[in-house]
């Protein structure tokens, strides 16, 4: 039960705080994965963003209304935190140059780091909304409706961004797309 966070003395915990504590336990890993994908594959930054989002959500519990689910509300905060992180990283890079928040260079046993970097770079080319829409729907498995709620945009807008994101990624990562890869295989050497 390492994921359980003691928030307050038991007697003082309201129903909403109970739900929040459960949310931390059940959504922490998904939240970290989503943050990781949104900030460009940086472990430390993903952890910071996730923690910031949980803290902000906890501090803002009083403002939560049941118009959306607690999960949707929390993920909205998380996506904003990730966007803020990207924005500040951009500012820092402009001021100090270099890649100040470069993903950790430590070797990672499974997977292909080079491929990860390529995918991160391709996602980086997308606009913020395209990237967020694509990651939420196609990588994290949120529905278009849930993603629209998280992003605070109409469903049509999210669909449009998804379409553009997919087109751009297909172009950038053509060798990973089955149809393009098949074509590449058919080509004579």
């Amino acid at each position, binding site marked *: 039960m390492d994921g359980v966070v003691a928030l307050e003395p038991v007697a003082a915990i309201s129903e909403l705080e109970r739900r929040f504590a459960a949310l931390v336990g059940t959504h922490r890993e998904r939240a*970290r994965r989503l943050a990781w994908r949104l900030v460009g*594959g940086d472990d430390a930054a993903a952890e910071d963003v996730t923690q910031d989002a949980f*803290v902000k959500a906890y501090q803002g519990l009083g403002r939560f209304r049941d118009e959306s689910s607690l999960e949707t509300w929390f993920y909205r905060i998380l996506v904003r935190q990730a966007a803020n992180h990207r924005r500040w990283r951009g500012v820092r890079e402009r001021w100090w140059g270099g890649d100040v928040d470069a993903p950790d260079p430590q070797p990672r*046993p499974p997977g292909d780091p080079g491929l990860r970097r390529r995918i991160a770079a391709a996602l980086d080319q997308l606009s913020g909304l395209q990237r967020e829409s694509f990651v939420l729907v196609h990588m994290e498995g949120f529905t278009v409706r849930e993603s629209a709620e998280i992003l605070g945009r109409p469903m049509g807008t999210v669909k449009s961004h998804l379409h553009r994101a997919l087109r751009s990624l297909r172009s950038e990562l053509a060798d990973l797309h*089955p149809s393009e890869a098949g074509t590449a295989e058919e080509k004579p050497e």
Partner: protein
Amino acid sequence: MKREDERLPLDSTDAHFAAKLAELYAPEPQTLEQRQAFARGLEARLSGRGYRRAWFPALASAAACAAAALTWLLVSPGSTPTRTATDSAVAGGASQKEWEAQLFYPDQLMGRYMEDVTTPRTGGLPDEYMAIASAFLDE
């Protein structure tokens, strides 16, 4: 829970492509130690310990900025009145103390040149203010 019509229809190759990206572009699962460290860090921040540390550098930066701005205002040639003979003449031969008082406490702030059109020229407060004041004073 999730309705089919909320899903974006993708053809099989695009669906396969998206699934492949999701599989390739994912963080490593955290170890038990990392999960525990995360939970400890989060707990510390939720109980406020993490924020107090962050206040000191922020306050120090704000104080330094304010000091720098004040220094710049006082030292910059455009904003600092350099005392010259002309200035003295304009000031009507004001003493150093008067000049400094004027610099830091302009007459407008001291109320010397302020004229409230609602105040009767005969002096004192407007009638309605006097009525309120007298009500309290009577008690």
